């Protein structure tokens, strides 16, 4: 693909671009799903294209095309320069990029089993077995399962001499059981809601998830929720399971630390951030037990935010975001790094596809596990009275990332160190920094899971991105519970 890139880079240079980079991307995806004993979706998709990102007259231009012939590539590069010159008509200062030593590299997601090498018959057989197990429970009215595989091959070549070839493999799977009765719909999902668990890994993930083994329990819980008590309203201590805490991190830490959002670049759509620049290294974001990193490196785990280089050729790094409760870092790019006094980008720029501009995205934004050994059962045993909430059902936060409300599929009341009655429709709400400062216990490494959010939306035109979030179950004191149903 170097020849494709060279056509584009040459054209951009001749037309006066001071910087240019080219991404050529080939994506393949497979989506399989079942519903109530039938295959719902069975599709295979491929998409191939290229884009050119340039700086000309001190401003950005970007153009993308599915055509890889010389004429089309050169026209796309020319278009990118034309667009940059149009951008320059409304600018105040030139774009400045933090230096980055151009890399020449090859990398592939570590994996044991190529998911596309597993037969579709085997995939469907697994999904239908799970479906049958779910619907064997009386009271289940709807059972949905899904398997998803993606492979993205990307060539990144820049006018600075970078030449990076990466192959990313993603696997995702999950299911949901719904029980409709007496004008009420209850739902349970496994291993996580809204598509399940996703990682940058091969098909070995499917085997690790123990999907079939958990199906009956999940279905039974969906039915049992109809007889459960409504979650009470008031101030309670709560324990969040690992997957719900992962989403809490995504919404109330991961998004507000995106530096482009902080700097106003997302104001029209996704909003801004309460983390104004003066709060760096001054704001007490959480309690002493809160340590959050943004880590794209392989050693963090096979998260959706794991790669070797980001989409502007910056190597994967680990940035400390919250250190013993103090706010210590943003997610940055080559364009934004200098605005917080950094000499180098934090390596977080990624795009959904060949036809989307790379933007600052969460990598793996994870809360580190507690250092002292603590299992979930031990955490429960040490808790007098709390509500344990598991598996997200709804999520909402304001456009500066202060006020949030989450609902989960299921809860249990904990009394005197024991799990007692099941609760339905649990929800909790709060203000981001008050909430994180109420964390007073977090389980240790054995309870830590690196969850995947496959469809984080951002940007205009909108694009989605996979992000990773590692978390162990944790306890929070004095949280507002149940206000979603107040006054209803």
């Amino acid at each position, binding site marked *: 693909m170097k020849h494709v890139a060279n056509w584009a880079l040459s054209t951009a240079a001749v037309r006066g671009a001071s910087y240019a980079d080219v991404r050529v991307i080939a994506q393949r995806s497979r989506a399989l799903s079942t519903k109530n004993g039938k*295959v*719902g*979706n*069975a*599709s*295979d*998709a*491929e*998409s*191939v294209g290229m*884009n050119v990102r340039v700086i000309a007259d001190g*401003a*950005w231009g970007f153009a*993308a*095309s*599915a*055509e890889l012939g010389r004429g089309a590539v050169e026209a796309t590069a020319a278009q990118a320069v034309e*667009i*940059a*010159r*149009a*951008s320059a*008509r*409304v600018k*105040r200062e030139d774009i400045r990029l933090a230096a980055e030593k151009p890399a020449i590299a090859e990398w592939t997601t570590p994996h044991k089993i190529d998911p596309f090498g597993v*037969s*579709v*018959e085997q995939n*469907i057989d697994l999904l*239908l077995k799970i479906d049958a197990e779910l619907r064997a429970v009386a009271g289940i*009215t*709807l059972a949905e399962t899904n398997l998803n595989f993606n492979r993205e091959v990307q060539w990144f070549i820049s006018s600075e001499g970078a030449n990076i070839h990466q192959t990313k493999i993603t696997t995702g799977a999950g299911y949901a059981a719904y029980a*409709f009765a007496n004008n*009420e*719909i209850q739902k349970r999902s496994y291993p996580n809601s809204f598509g399940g668990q996703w990682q940058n890994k091969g098909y070995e993930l499917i085997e690790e998830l123990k999907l079939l083994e958990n199906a009956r329990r999940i279905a039974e819980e969906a039915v049992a929720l109809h007889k459960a008590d409504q979650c009470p309203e008031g101030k309670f201590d709560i324990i969040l399971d690992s997957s719900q805490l992962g989403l809490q991190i995504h919404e109330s830490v991961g998004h507000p630390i995106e530096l482009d959002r902080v*700097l*106003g*670049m997302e*104001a*029209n759509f996704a*909003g801004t951030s309460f983390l104004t620049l003066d709060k760096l290294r001054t704001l007490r974001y959480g309690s002493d037990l809160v340590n959050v990193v943004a880590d794209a490196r392989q050693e963090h785990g096979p998260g959706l935010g794991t790669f070797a280089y980001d989409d502007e050729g910056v190597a994967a790094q680990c940035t400390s975001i919250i250190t013993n409760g103090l706010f210590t870092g943003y997610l940055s790019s080559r364009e934004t790094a200098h605005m917080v006094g950094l000499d180098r980008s934090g390596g977080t720029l990624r795009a959904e596809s060949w*036809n989307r501009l790379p933007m600052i995205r969460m990598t793996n934004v994870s809360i580190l596990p507690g250092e002292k050994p603590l299992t979930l059962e031990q955490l429960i045993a040490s808790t007098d009275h709390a509500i344990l909430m598991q598996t997200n059902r*709804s*999520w*909402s936060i*304001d*456009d*500066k990332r*202060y*006020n949030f*409300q989450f609902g989960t599929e299921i809860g249990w009341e904990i009394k005197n160190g024991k799990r007692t009655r099941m609760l339905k429709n649990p*929800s909790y*709400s709060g*203000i981001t920094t008050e909430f994180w400062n109420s964390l007073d216990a977090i389980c240790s490494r054995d309870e830590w899971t690196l969850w995947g959010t496959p469809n984080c939306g951002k940007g205009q035109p909108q694009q989605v991105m996979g992000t990773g979030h590692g978390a162990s179950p944790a306890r929070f004191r004095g949280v507002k519970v149940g*206000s*979603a*149903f*107040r*006054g*209803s």
Partner: protein
Amino acid sequence: MLTFDQFADIFDRIRKLSSADEVEVLFTGGRFALTRFANNVIHQNVAEENHVVSVRTAFGTKTARATTNKFDDESLRQVVKSSENLAKVQHPDPDLLPVPNPAEASGPADAQSTSRYFEQTAAITPELRAEGVRKIVGVADRHKLTTAGVFSSGELFEGVFNSSGLSKWHTQTSAEVSITMLSADSSGWQKANSPDINNLDPLRLAEVAAQKAVDTAHPREIPAGKYTLIFEPAAVLDIVGFMFWDYSGMAILDQRSFLTGRIGTRLFGDNITIWDDVAHPLQAGVPFDGEGVHRQKVCLVKNGVVDRVVYARATADRMKRSEYKDSVGPIAATGHGFSLPNEMGEMPVNIVFAPVNNPQSIEQMIASTERGVLVTRLWYIREVEPFEKMLTGMTRDGTFLIENGRVQGGIRNFRFNESLVHMLSNVEAMSTPVRSCGEESFDMVVPAMKVKDFNFTEVTKF
């Protein structure tokens, strides 16, 4: 952009490559460009062109789909092979129908055919968009505000061809402007889109957004509670959009719809009448569904009574054989199906609220309100409880206190938790419906609404 004839040729090539009993091909794509601005400068500026072919093959009642954006012979051979290989290993689907023929998919003889392609919109250049942004920034500078937003334009196509001789084709242009104006402690917002750029007035939108930011500066905090709300049309669109997934025959069959057991009953106020009507002059979009079937005008709600839901062909067939057949109103394919195979069935996507006999302007609604809140838009709406359609979300970008019939200034934004059933049962007044767009749902023709007893449960810090 490729033409209808070029795609017809591609379909012929695909059909010759396939050994399937039936072949159906969807074509989508076009050109799109977007100029994005923030902090009073253009900070992102993009353009793309893509053409996608999606091939569904069927062997008896086994079917699957494969998609590519390459049209050379080898790529077409591969996409057909992918679709066929995937289809052959599927389990038979007893509900799968043969692809529709042209007669079955056609609309009534007098069906309106509205062109939504405008050359002037297709011809918008980066320079024209930049000039538009420069003027918007000028409005911001004059009010000493910061502005952020987008100015986009594009030409899109969508087509369906199948081995029964059906060929449907639609092209459309689009232009959109969205503007946020920000001060140190307030903001305002406006957004509009249309197939025809001449229907947009970016400078007027900029002035309205700017005035909202100015008028909500130094917002007060008022307590959470139940208020009379005046929703601007975009706010109505954003919240009501969350119920339309349920106006689906498949959703009823799956028992995941809040309309289960409620079709034919009065669920909302008698001033609520809702249609799905792609041909409405203020609507836009493709006039056929994912199988190429003509989209019919369907009455979803009539005077507060849930009238009917929409159906893809196979869903209608299933519903006629189901235990619900006598309790769901008329059952017939309405041309709202998603492309096959899918598990969701269908949904209405061209919503039009019927005008009321005595519409009120927003100013009239304000004048008649003793104490209430005027809402510009809503944000991050999610479903909390599915059967009463309880939703949560935030107000945003221009939230005002109304007292004694006058706007009294800006207030801090609220979180709401409210049931759509309750909301639409408590609409005291509506304006004339207008074409509107938001961020939480698709474009609709909706009115502004005055709603009593809307539940704000929390206040945020700005």
